[in-house]
């Protein structure tokens, strides 16, 4: 089984996995970083969203072999103390219900706001449209992204 050298949250890791193994399962099963969630495995729900060189990426569709040499950020590495403006906004708005999809929502929102720090309401709705929340906490997700944007700009 080949060894892949990947950089996760600033740490270099060597993992033995078959080349097509999605990064999602490498993170969860090989590296014990379980904050990144499995939801659908086909890039439809966004629960597995991570940052790949700063870009929001679905880790369930990303073979580990293509992640070599790239900087991977997961929810565990988004901030040192859970105090990224997006995480702070999630607290302030009391977003989660079951909470399962929220890591993916936060990773999508934080990458989006880096590229677009002053989004309109419709831009927020469009940016977050790819992430499913089965508890339908959408009103609060929208509000928290707007609040984080305000803090960041």
């Amino acid at each position, binding site marked *: 089984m080949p060894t892949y050298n990947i950089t996760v949250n600033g740490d270099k890791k060597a993992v033995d996995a*078959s080349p097509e193994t999605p990064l999602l399962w490498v993170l*969860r099963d090989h590296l014990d970083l379980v904050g990144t*969630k499995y939801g659908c495995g086909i890039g439809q729900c966004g629960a597995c969203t991570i940052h790949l060189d700063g870009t929001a990426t679905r880790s369930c569709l990303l073979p580990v072999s293509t992640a070599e040499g790239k900087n991977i950020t997961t929810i565990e590495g*988004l901030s040192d103390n859970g105090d990224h403006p997006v995480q702070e906004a999630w607290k302030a708005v009391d977003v989660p219900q079951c909470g*399962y999809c929220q890591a993916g929502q936060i990773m999508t929102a934080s990458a989006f706001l880096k590229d677009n720090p002053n989004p309109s309401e419709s831009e927020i709705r469009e940016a*977050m449209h790819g992430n499913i929340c089965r508890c*339908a906490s959408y009103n609060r*997700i929208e509000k928290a992204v707007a609040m984080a944007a305000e803090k960041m700009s």
Partner: protein
Amino acid sequence: METSNKITFSRRNFMRTTALAGGGMLIGFNLFTACKEAVKPPVDIADLNFNDFNAFIKIADNGMVTIFSPNPEIGQGVKTSMPMIIAEELDVPWENVHVAQGVLDTKNYTRQVAGGSQSIRFGWDALRQTGATARQMLVNAAAAKWGVDASECSASEGIITNSKGETLGYGDVVKEAAALEIPENTALKEPRDYKIVGADAINVDMEKIITGKPLYGLDYKVDGMVYASVLRPPAFGQKLSAFDDMGAKAVEGVSDVIRFGEKVAVLANNTWSAMQGKKALKATWSDNSSLENTEDHDKILTEILDGNKFETRREDGNVKKAFAQADKVIERTYESPFLPHNCMEPMNFYADVTDDKIHLVGPIQTPEGTANRVANMLNRDVNDIHLEMTRMGGGFGRRLYGDFVMEAAEISNLAKKPVKVVFSREDDMAAGIYRPAIKYRIAASVKDGKLTGYHLKEAAINSNMYGLIPHFFPAGCIDNYKVSTANHQSKITTGAWRAPYTNFLAFAEQSFFDELARELEQDPVQLRIDLLQNVKGNTDDRIQYSGQRMEDTIKLAAEKGNWGKQEEGVYQGFAAYYSHNTHVAELAEVVMKDNFPVVTKVVVAVDCGIVINPTGAKNQIEGGVIDGIGHAMYGDLAFKNGVPQATNFDEFRLIRMQETPKVETYFVQNTLSPTGLGEPGLPPAGGAIANAIYNAAGQRLLKQPFVKHIKAEVKELVG
């Protein structure tokens, strides 16, 4: 029920205390059941077990309070709201309270079930009484220390004060309090004095959720554990004939392939390999040529409605006569498909079955019943089972059923290894226990411009509405009223889905009342209020809802949503429904965008009695309304030769951000005992938007999902 501040039963048998060896006081208590004779809570917090008590409160010698929350958390917020009730009566600052997961054993864990929006309703009295009794013990201990009478002392915010103004913190007297006799007849607070109940408290697991800490069943891991991916019959009703596991065993990481019953498990050292191994299995299935199709169900349910083989579930007056004498009879048929639950966290469970014990860990809404089933299946003593619950990534009814726990236990028993069964999304959607397809036919008789009779018929797959539903609105409002039900037995497994039956019934009835109002040339809101006058003073104790509470709720929604005063281009629709002991009214607004109706706003009024945690309560309502809209608009699961035709989110459409309206929630203010919120926000949503869509586009939607049935003509009507 008006909230009572009088103790109605002895607490002596319901709680016990000990002084902890490391300092502090530990209170063990049981909701609803007495403690066994002679049991005491442990003196070391590491020895907490939930066999003798179903919850614990630790008060440390620095005054900090830890509450081991007694109910499973599926996202409905009880892990936050139930401890708030204890903290209120104990009278400690909420910042000094830490909530730990009730460490997860099951036996004697009464009402350790999340379902039916009942956790708060059943826990209200016991949680208050436990908190108040503990506070009184601390006051008694302080009074003894001062040598004064306890009646001269009071407690607030974790501090006890005597008549001279001297103070002691709770932590200063825990050791003494733990040794005291448990007092009886402790007074509870008046609702107007509440400081914690009624104030916003954010989700107690917030930090862990937003930083990605392990919380859920899927995150649970122990050394030496293997992952199992299970191949199940693709069609409901099929059986396994044979399988070839050569391809599966060739997948790197796969260790075993095990047949159990009609299923085959592939075990591997990581989830991905187990899933790949399962895909590589070659299996043949026997077809008993009675595999079911949606078209067959459709035909059968219609035949049931057209026939006369019904069970009468309630009958008032003489419906037949009312219909015979009517000037006009209006009849409509409403249809809904099967629905999967689609919890974001797919079904999964950990099992380690050994000769000594059975260790089960994961997300389950019914730990006690499931442990019993596992014991029966493996022919073991239930006392061998230790079942731990994790936080759940959604439930919606699916995790009431322990099928995935049974699978994990059976595989571990055969493999002699600790095993975690993980459903792929496709497994989760295709091996469901679905909301059954249902058709309702509603008929009403009109005589001299008045509603004289009402007949609701239900034809459902597998099972019918539960016992209380025939006594929901409009039972008691119409002299001649009848509810009839019948079902068809199917091989497709069905079960509870968020607000069972009413999730669709409320749409049917609330759409029907909208149409009826037009027929009677009445305002739809006024028609409901007029009808509700008839139930007031009704002495039939089978009737579940309150006419007055429903009327107040309807009026609040109509007022806050400006019923009848919409802006140009905005179309309103109204629905109101009682379910799960809570009254809810919803006013939806729809606009036409690109000739398609779009729901932009829903104003909700709720009477759930005292609101424990307003932010959590609103979150439940916002989610329930949007969930209800999403499934009414898009939810559809068809079957072809017994095989579900959607197995992932590319084929099954869930509502997403751009399709969501803004939800505004208002609570009816009263001091009645609290009721649940996980479910009752959902049922009225479908009716409210269908009625608004009618006003916007002129089309009556009778079938879900709406998106399939919104006609092309709608475009012409507005175009």
